[in-house]
């Protein structure tokens, strides 16, 4: 049996769910049908009445898990520290919000909680004992353009080391390994009026690994068009780092967001070299879940009918082969 396990974040099916084409049960069933038996959810996205959980819902949830042979894996938490205009929530109120989500994750049987990247290291330190109490590991999401050894993550790492708790770690989002800028994003900009020439320049320079600063500078020297500048700025929001960077941190990595933009077929994601990424995870002995996170939906739904199910199916097939199940 392969060490790396497969799952799906139901986030992937958001388009169909939003449009009422799929229910939560449909989402779970589809994930299971691809052999992805780990289920990740954003509680706020699909659980009506969040953060409250009725006994009826919890029963249904575990009922679905039994029915489809799936396992609850991860709940994705958000931290709304700007609940009121002009006012930032106190640290203790923020801590309460985290505890609320830990309880939520615990009740749904999730052993991992994705912590949103903006959460401070200080807060993680305060929350660590509660993570232990509710038996839910908290992983700070390493989301592009952050990366696992940048300044913010270094401070998180220091807290992990200081607390020396197995309940603190990283959840790398594979968007950090975006080698080519998603063509569906570039096409979206073109539909909004960006210039072909600028689009080509940005995509080519990004793929060559040119520093965002240079790309933005060059585009600004060519045009003032806001949509063109915004396209150039994409080079700041996307990132590609060498996945080898994960190796010194493997003991702190217990879950992976298998972000993707566009599966061309059952072997290839357009932007992210999953072969490289999975090779590093294997080398590092990763044993957790890789959960599909389909990000294409909102970049294409202005012009196309989204087929999240087919996209996830292809990615799961690719992952299965790469993992070597």
């Amino acid at each position: 049996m392969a060490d790396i396990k497969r799952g799906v974040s139901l986030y992937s099916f958001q388009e169909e769910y939003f449009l009422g084409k799929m229910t939560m049960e449909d989402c779970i069933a589809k994930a299971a049908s691809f052999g992805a038996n780990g289920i990740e959810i954003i509680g706020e996205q699909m659980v009506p009445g969040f953060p409250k959980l009725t006994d009826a819902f919890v029963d249904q949830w575990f009922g679905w898990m039994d029915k489809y042979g799936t396992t609850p894996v991860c709940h994705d938490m958000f931290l709304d520290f700007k609940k009121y205009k002009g006012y930032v929530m106190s640290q203790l109120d923020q801590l309460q919000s985290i505890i609320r989500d830990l309880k939520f994750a615990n009740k749904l049987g999730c052993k991992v909680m994705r912590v949103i990247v903006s959460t401070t290291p200080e807060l993680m330190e305060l929350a660590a004992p509660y993570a232990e109490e509710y038996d839910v590991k908290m992983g700070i999401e390493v989301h592009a353009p952050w990366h696992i050894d940048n300044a913010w993550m270094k401070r998180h790492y220091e807290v992990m080391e200081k607390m020396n708790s197995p309940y603190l770690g990283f959840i790398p989002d594979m968007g950090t390994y975006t080698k080519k800028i998603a063509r569906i994003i570039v096409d979206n900009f073109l539909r909004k009026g960006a210039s072909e020439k600028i689009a080509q320049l940005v995509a080519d320079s990004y793929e060559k690994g040119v520093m965002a600063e240079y790309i933005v500078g060059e585009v600004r020297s060519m045009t003032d068009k806001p949509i063109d500048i915004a396209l150039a700025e994409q080079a700041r929001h996307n990132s590609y780092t060498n996945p080898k960077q994960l190796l010194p941190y493997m003991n702190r990595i217990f879950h992976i967001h298998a972000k993707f933009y566009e599966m061309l077929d059952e072997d290839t994601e357009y932007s992210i070299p999953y072969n490289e990424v999975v090779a590093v995870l294997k080398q590092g002995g990763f044993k957790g879940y890789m959960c599909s996170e389909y990000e294409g939906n909102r970049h294409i739904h202005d012009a196309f009918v989204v087929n999240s199910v087919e996209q996830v199916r292809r990615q799961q097939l690719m992952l299965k082969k790469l993992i070597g199940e």
Partner: protein
Amino acid sequence: MYEQYIIHTKPENTVENGTVTGFQVGAKLPYYRGLGISMIEDVQLTIDGKAVAPENILVVLHGNTYTLKQMETEPEDRWEFGEVGTIKVLQPGGLVSGEHTVELLFNLRVSYMPVNAIRKYSKTFMV
């Protein structure tokens, strides 16, 4: 993102006790996880190019009716992801039959974003 789904149903006149008190549209929140109501910093509706005064806008969600002012202090109740709410405009007499253009704008204060997300959509209907 999600902009084209903002206006869910076309404008209809609101009849209360036999009187047309205004008009209303069905709407969805253009954001992928729903949001506590106090974080919906603003809702603006423009009809045929004319902005509706904020005090004449009501938001109805699963049976609860809010003025924009009331929304500011309601953090618990949420506009759920995919939920169809109703934006009511107080305008005695409502809309006359014919073509009308509605623009609906949401200003969302999402904590992890450095600036608010402002999303809007405009559509023309035969009423």
